[in-house]
């Protein structure tokens, strides 16, 4: 499996965020996207997930089932946590598992893996920002998908939470997965890096 971006150009609101971006990420590798605020890190992730269309260029995920949109092979965790405050943690996660096709760890195992065991029956509106983030990360392992697209995955996580994330990512990479993460903080995983400049050149 290989993630390939060729000549990618992204225009948002009439402004060119970056142009002619080329990169390749092989199976088992991670790519960190860095750059100042507004450089287009989040937009790049949304492009890769298929949530936005590029103004020019091509994105391909080699080795995924042909005819399937790339997004179906990808987990996308944006800066929002996609959790419903009215539902309990376990209900939120069970929904994600059923929606995304399941096939991974059980809800209880995933909650334990991200350090939320004991909080399964607590409504998510009671959660702190860090706990919500942990719940979002639990989604990654209840339904395995080869490509992880993560926007600031460790925001609001404490030191132990960051270790947990690093362990999850390392395990994913060891299994031949791909991680693309936009971040300002070091993620404690070995990775190639691509820097988006405010001026647009990569």
């Amino acid at each position, binding site marked *: 499996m290989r993630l390939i971006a060729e000549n990618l150009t992204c225009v948002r609101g009439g402004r060119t965020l970056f142009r002619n971006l080329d990169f390749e990420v092989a199976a088992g590798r991670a790519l960190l996207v860095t750059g100042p605020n507004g450089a287009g890190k989040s937009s790049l992730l949304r492009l890769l997930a298929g*949530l936005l269309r590029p103004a020019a260029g091509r994105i391909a995920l080699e080795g995924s089932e042909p005819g399937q949109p790339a997004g179906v092979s990808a987990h*996308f965790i944006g*800066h*929002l*946590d996609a959790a*419903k405050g*009215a*539902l309990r943690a376990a209900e939120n996660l069970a929904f994600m598992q*059923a929606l995304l096709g399941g096939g991974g760890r059980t809800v209880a195992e995933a909650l334990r893996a991200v350090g939320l065991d004991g909080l399964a029956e607590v409504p998510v509106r009671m959660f702190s920002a860090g706990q919500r983030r942990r719940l979002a990360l639990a989604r990654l392992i209840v339904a395995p998908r080869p490509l992880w697209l993560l926007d600031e995955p460790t925001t609001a996580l404490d030191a132990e939470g960051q270790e947990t994330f690093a362990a999850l990512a390392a395990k994913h990479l060891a299994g031949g997965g791909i991680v693309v993460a936009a971040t300002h903080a070091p993620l404690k995983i070995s990775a190639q890096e691509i820097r988006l400049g405010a001026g647009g050149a990569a």
Partner: protein
Amino acid sequence: MIAALRAVFVRDLMIAFRVGGGAGIGVVFFLALVTVIPFAIGPDLPLLARIGPAVLWIGALLASLLGLDRIFSADHDDGSLDVLLLAPVPLELIAAAKGAAHWVATGLPLVIAAPLLGLLLGLEPRMLGAIALTLLLGTPALTFFGLVGAALAVALPRGGLLVAVLILPLTIPVLIFGVAATVGAAGGPVPFDMPLRLVGALSLATFVIGPVAAAAAIRQIRD
């Protein structure tokens, strides 16, 4: 795929019944509207009975417009719409599942409440059954037309009023045939079954048009 759609349906229902405002607000509005009308019109039972079906239908129509704008925009606001878009299920079917959940949470309570409120308006027993039946067939059309407006609300933060104004004209045929069928049940100028079938046909058509148009609108807006 069925499991994913069931998950969407069940989740939306749980949220609607757990967040107090969701399911109850439409019925309370319906109740408020129908109970104040006899006070405004005065103790003229024959008049109330004559306008009763129209009052009940107008109440149900307006009540079902409440909360429409949150169907998709709530998911947009907390990021879950992104996940729904990446699910291995067509967005059209997800929209349909969300519409079905919204109808069960907001439309079905109106159908159940309508005959009881009909008693307040002095409707004949035969009309009470007719109003429940026409609403049962007609309110799904209101919700599924509403899906289109709900999708547009994703691009219009706090566009609830605008959504209602956009959807209202589309729902007028449902209102016309719904009231005609109810009046026909008590021996009005038109027979009961013809407008009833049209109401049913409108609902069936919106089951297709609503989710497809809503999904198209969401894809367009979010790009």
